[in-house]
């Protein structure tokens, strides 16, 4: 089976510092893949470079097309969507307008359907639809960022630390919704420091350390790996 996203031998540098080195990763259709690792391992850099925010060396094939030289906007058009770490919402615009712009590239009629689906996944957003995005709570902003990304009906949703800074009850809610996305046919590439929660919902996982993948395999195997348990799932982990 060919992969939906195939990242091959990708390196990303900031000047002389190589933040990501020779990384190879794939996400297949209807799959949740997670990349776990400590703060500073290069996870966010990998996601941002895959989206086209930073230039990278190597090959990125998405849905059969090499997208490594495309602009962010063309990657969005191809069906790739990123919910970035800082969410990047339109703070002075309403929830409704944020969602409408999420569907900027698709037809009005399809957008209306997407909106129903997003309100179905996040009833909270429907209640708050006339409110300005900047006045929402952290959890609601994360929901809006995910909702906005889903409005464009992406084939692959990339999530960067969706649980960051949120209360545990909201984190549980967000992860439940990520699970529902797979059921709805959206593939997910999830980058998380909260390894425990990520490994619970993921199909496969990669472990990243100092810019390189040190381990990969089915999420259940990774969760049972002694090293991973010691480094990421032990009682000392803050999450």
């Amino acid at each position, binding site marked *: 089976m060919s992969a939906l996203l195939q990242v091959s031998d990708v390196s990303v540098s900031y000047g002389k510092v190589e933040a990501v080195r020779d990384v190879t990763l794939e996400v297949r259709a209807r799959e949740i893949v997670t990349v776990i690792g400590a703060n500073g391992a290069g996870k966010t850099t990998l996601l941002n470079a895959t*989206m086209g*925010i930073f230039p990278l060396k190597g090959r990125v094939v998405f849905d059969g097309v090499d997208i490594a*030289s*495309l*602009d*962010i*906007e*063309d990657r*969005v*058009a191809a069906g790739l*969507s*990123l919910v*970035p770490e800082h969410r*990047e*919402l*339109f*703070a*002075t*615009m309403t929830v409704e*307008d944020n969602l*409408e*712009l*999420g569907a*900027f*590239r698709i037809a*009005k009629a399809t957008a209306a359907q997407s909106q129903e689906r997003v309100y179905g996944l996040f009833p909270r957003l429907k209640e708050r639809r006339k409110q300005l995005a900047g006045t929402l709570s952290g959890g609601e902003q994360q929901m809006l960022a995910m909702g*906005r*990304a889903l*409005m*464009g009906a992406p084939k692959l949703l990339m999530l960067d630390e969706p649980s960051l800074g949120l209360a545990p009850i909201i984190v549980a809610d967000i992860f439940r919704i990520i699970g529902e996305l797979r059921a709805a046919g959206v593939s997910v590439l999830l980058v998380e420091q909260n390894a425990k929660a990520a490994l619970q919902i993921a199909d496969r996982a990669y472990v990243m350390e100092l810019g390189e993948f040190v381990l990969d395999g089915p999420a259940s195997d990774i969760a049972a790996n002694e090293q991973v348990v010691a480094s990421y799932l032990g009682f000392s982990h803050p999450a």
Partner: protein
Amino acid sequence: MREGGVRLNTTILLFLLQDGITNGAIYALLGLALVLVFAVTRVILIPQGEFITFGALTYATLSAGGVPGTASLAMVMGIVAFGFELFSTRKSLRAAKVLRAAAIYLVFPAVVLALATLLPATRPGVAVNIALSLAIVAAIGLFLYRIAFQPLAHTSVLVLLIASVGTHLALQGFGLVFFGAEGLRGPPLSDAAVTLGPLRFTGQSIAVYSITIVVMAGLWLFFGYTRMGKALRATAVNRLGARLVGIRTSLSGQLAFLLASVIGAISGILIVPITTLYYDTGFLIGLKGFVAAIIGGLVSYPLTAFAAIVVGVVEAFSSFYASNYKEVIVFTLILPVLVLRSLAAPAVEEEKD
């Protein structure tokens, strides 16, 4: 007491207010365009003055039966912009893209140039001349962004400002070449006049008010209710967020420049029947819109519109009391505003993208 012992009485007061509001309405349009362009592209649009002059003098030239040089300038800029476009998309050249670029950068200015060359001899009337002037200036505005600002879009506000000054000087030079050092006046939009008590409203001043209101209402509807308008606002609020939903920053920039150039040209066409305009007058008029935009902090549209009316009224009264110091007084308005703003807001670093 002043020259000739004229005192301020009710009639003069009303006349000055009316005059101030008429000019203020035009400054308001310009101020709004400046805020829009800055919010979307971070460019402080100094060539706004040239959009005014080009709009006004193109209209005046067409009305006099002449062929304006601005039409040829638009064609040349279109060819250059087309070259830029092809070069920047050389890695992903597709027929559809090339055709679209050719339609915007070549066919559009060519049609406009043909019309501007053929029509003036037939004396087509005010409406056609206005439409043609707007099309010419719109093309110049759009191509100016493509040539001078889109390649610099990722740079700092300072670099963009320097480019802005450069394009202002270049376009002003073209203005002198095309229109000469003599001033021009255009025909009024309407010769009608209405008298209400002590006030006499000329057709032109009524046109200024109504067109200002229509343009503002149009902008309000555009930004509040259309997807493209919201996309423009979104780019202003969060550039990366906008790109992540697929809104091209270059598209937003082009649209902002297109709107600004059309607004500038409209302002020029509204002014040129009232005052004689020279190739370099636009700069000073644009600067007054800029004072209003600064009072609005380069972000607030309502505050900018209100400030523009204040600028117009202050200008009218200072031309009555101290006409030699008119400009000094108007531009001094900016000082207390900047002091107050600097006290109210803590020092911030320039935004990093």
